[in-house]
């Protein structure tokens, strides 16, 4: 109640007038009442009432927060978090090696970024995840829906249909071997049409449409509460050209990252972004690095880099708070994103060379 007037979310003109009139704390405003306020400052009674309502809401919010109730800031112990994390589902990628290095799959409530050269399989992975998020719980999935925001135009419906058909077939095989009732029931609703109708597709042509769409995303997700995956395919593309003001770009990207973190947490969904690679010209040689600059690297919690090694596609876990840096091979078949057969592969020592700026982890277990 002793909150300073300058910190209240009122319009700046109103704040200036209140300061000029000498009001200092929120309690004073509440005590004056709307009629008194309108007389002293010279605003209409309706405006004064509106301002007081805002002040009252803010103060009650503050009180709730200090009392430790459920407010906008969440407080919990690490034990509660641990239980939450363990109960959480992962979105599997159908490539067991990739799932292993991610610790089970793409994690919900976290932002995962996939970087890679053109043609290496980023969009394929996104399409695979948009199908995999819908796998029913009895088969080990999270039974959610997917939002696909496309900025590059590389979403091919026919390809998604192929991937979805392969996934349904896979689940049918599992159901046949296990012969359980809930498997059969789940399979009734898990069909090609239902998978495709639960992928919500947005095509954003430039960065303004992308920004607008991300502003509207929380409302959309409240309406479609079953969404567990938000894919933005090509976050780099709209920001990489036509931007003279790089500081504006950094600001917009940071704002975008913040909103996505809020969305991921509030709606318990995974956010997957794909990024491009750009050539950084160094003194003697040039290297491929993820686009959008150094500061963007902080936005994602988990970072995967897809690259080529002669003719093998490799995925490297570049940044993760809980898993070790490692590289695995994968392949893309007509059925989608899969392991390389045979799955037994020796650990690649190149993983430390991938990132010369990180200290290599020493193997402590022998």
């Amino acid at each position, binding site marked *: 109640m002793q909150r300073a007037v300058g910190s209240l979310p009122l319009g700046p003109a109103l704040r200036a007038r209140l300061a000029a009139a000498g009001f200092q704390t929120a309690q004073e405003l509440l005590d004056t009442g709307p009629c008194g306020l309108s007389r002293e400052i010279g605003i209409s009674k309706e405006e004064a009432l509106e301002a007081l309502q805002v002040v009252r809401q803010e103060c009650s919010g503050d009180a709730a927060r200090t009392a430790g109730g459920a407010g906008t800031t969440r407080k919990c112990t690490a034990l509660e978090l641990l239980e939450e994390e363990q109960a959480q589902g992962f979105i599997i990628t159908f490539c067991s090696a990739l799932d292993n290095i991610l610790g089970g799959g793409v994690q919900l409530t976290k932002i995962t970024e996939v970087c890679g050269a053109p043609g290496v399989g980023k969009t394929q992975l996104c399409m695979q995840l948009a199908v995999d998020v819908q796998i029913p719980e009895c088969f080990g999935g999270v039974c959610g829906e997917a939002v696909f925001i496309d900025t590059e135009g590389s979403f091919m419906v026919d390809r998604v249909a192929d991937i979805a058909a392969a996934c349904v077939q896979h689940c049918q095989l599992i159901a046949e071997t296990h012969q359980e009732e809930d498997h059969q029931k789940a399979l009734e609703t898990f069909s090609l049409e239902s998978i*495709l109708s639960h992928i919500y*597709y947005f095509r954003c042509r430039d960065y*303004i449409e992308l920004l*607008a769409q991300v502003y*509207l995303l929380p409302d959309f997700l409240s309406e479609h509460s079953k969404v567990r995956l938000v894919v933005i395919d090509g976050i780099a593309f709209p920001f*990489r050209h036509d931007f003279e003001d790089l500081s504006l770009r950094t600001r917009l990207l940071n704002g975008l990252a913040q909103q996505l973190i809020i969305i991921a947490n509030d709606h318990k969904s995974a956010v997957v972004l794909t990024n491009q690679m750009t050539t950084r010209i160094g003194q003697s040689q040039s290297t*491929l690095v993820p686009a959008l600059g150094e500061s963007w690297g902080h936005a994602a919690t988990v970072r995967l880099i897809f690259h080529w090694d002669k003719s093998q596609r490799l995925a490297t876990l570049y940044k993760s708070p809980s898993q070790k840096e490692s590289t695995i091979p994968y392949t893309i078949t007509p059925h989608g994103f899969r392991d390389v057969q045979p799955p037994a592969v020796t650990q690649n020592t190149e993983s430390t060379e991938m990132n010369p700026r990180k200290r290599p982890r020493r193997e402590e277990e022998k």
Partner: protein
Amino acid sequence: MAAKKLRRAKLSQELCERLSRYQITTCQDFLCLSLLELMKVTGQSYRNVQKLLRQVSLACAPKMQTAYEMKVRRSVNPSSAFLSTTLHSLDKVLHGGVPCGSLTEITSPPGCGKTQFCIMMSVLATLPVSMGGLDGAVVYIDTESAFSAERLVEIAGNRFPTYFDSDEKLFCMTRSIHLYRELTCDSVLKRIKSLEEEIISKKVKLIIIDSVASVVRKEFDTKLQGNLAERSNFLARGASLLKYLAEEFSIPVILTNQITTSLSNGLAIPADLVSPADDLFLSEVSGASGSGKKESGCVTAALGNTWSHSVNTRLILQYHDLPTRQILVAKSPVAPFSVFFYTIEKSGLVLQGLWIKWLSAPAVLLCSACLPQMVPMAGFYA
């Protein structure tokens, strides 16, 4: 969408006037500001500003469609999803042909048949739908002055002798191919911007730009400072305009590109090899690099990394064993790496009988470089 005026976003008149005093007139200006700045310029409280943001976003945001609706729309109109190239095996691998609604790039060293391919596709686009065409006009933007109308007529007459049996039909076909000669980057960009109205008025069903690389490489010397960024800027703008046209009208766009040699003593070697199919070995390595060993002088598609991200499908033409050449599917969202052999005849490109399906990339490299005979390799799904 971004240039939409705030008035049309249904903001109140006085708010629009107030914002225009701060030079904020379009949705783009509005959405680029932070919340505090918005509070300052609108003079409203935090919650109201959030509501305004939502309102403006609603005016800009794209429409939602489910994947199922998209599929249904495509299946209702299957012939409009692809332009068949009449190279039967290539069409099968590409699931129908050159896809509509996305950019396809043809890259090759000089003389392999890019322009021949483009001329052939122009003929195909004017054919009626029953014969696999799109029954529409073609916009051909020629930057190298390589288009030959006589060759066009020759290909048409020899490939479809039964259809083009009269002069009347040939003239009708040639009338629907609109040729523009543009010699600078600026004029190419201006032409692309003007295409939207042309497409509607002339019922255009195919856009060909032959070639993008020649204008760009003439004007931008990447060794000079600042030119690399400008070049990427130009290419990115062109690519996004073309993508918009391709998607809006659901038509294919074909672009041609050149090959560049990246020298080992210069910049950018392993970095530029964005995919193994880019690492081409030619039986005739042009110019300076000399030794043709793997370390020095490997060839890649020109125009750099950013451009490779913008195109959706990439076909590479190469020399094989004169007169046979080969066509490689290097990047495609629906097709794996494949190689087909062809020759250039009177009727355009003709696929040879022998072709290797589902090759792994090293085999492709070996085939093209040293070994004239075919080496069977492990399959793609092994």
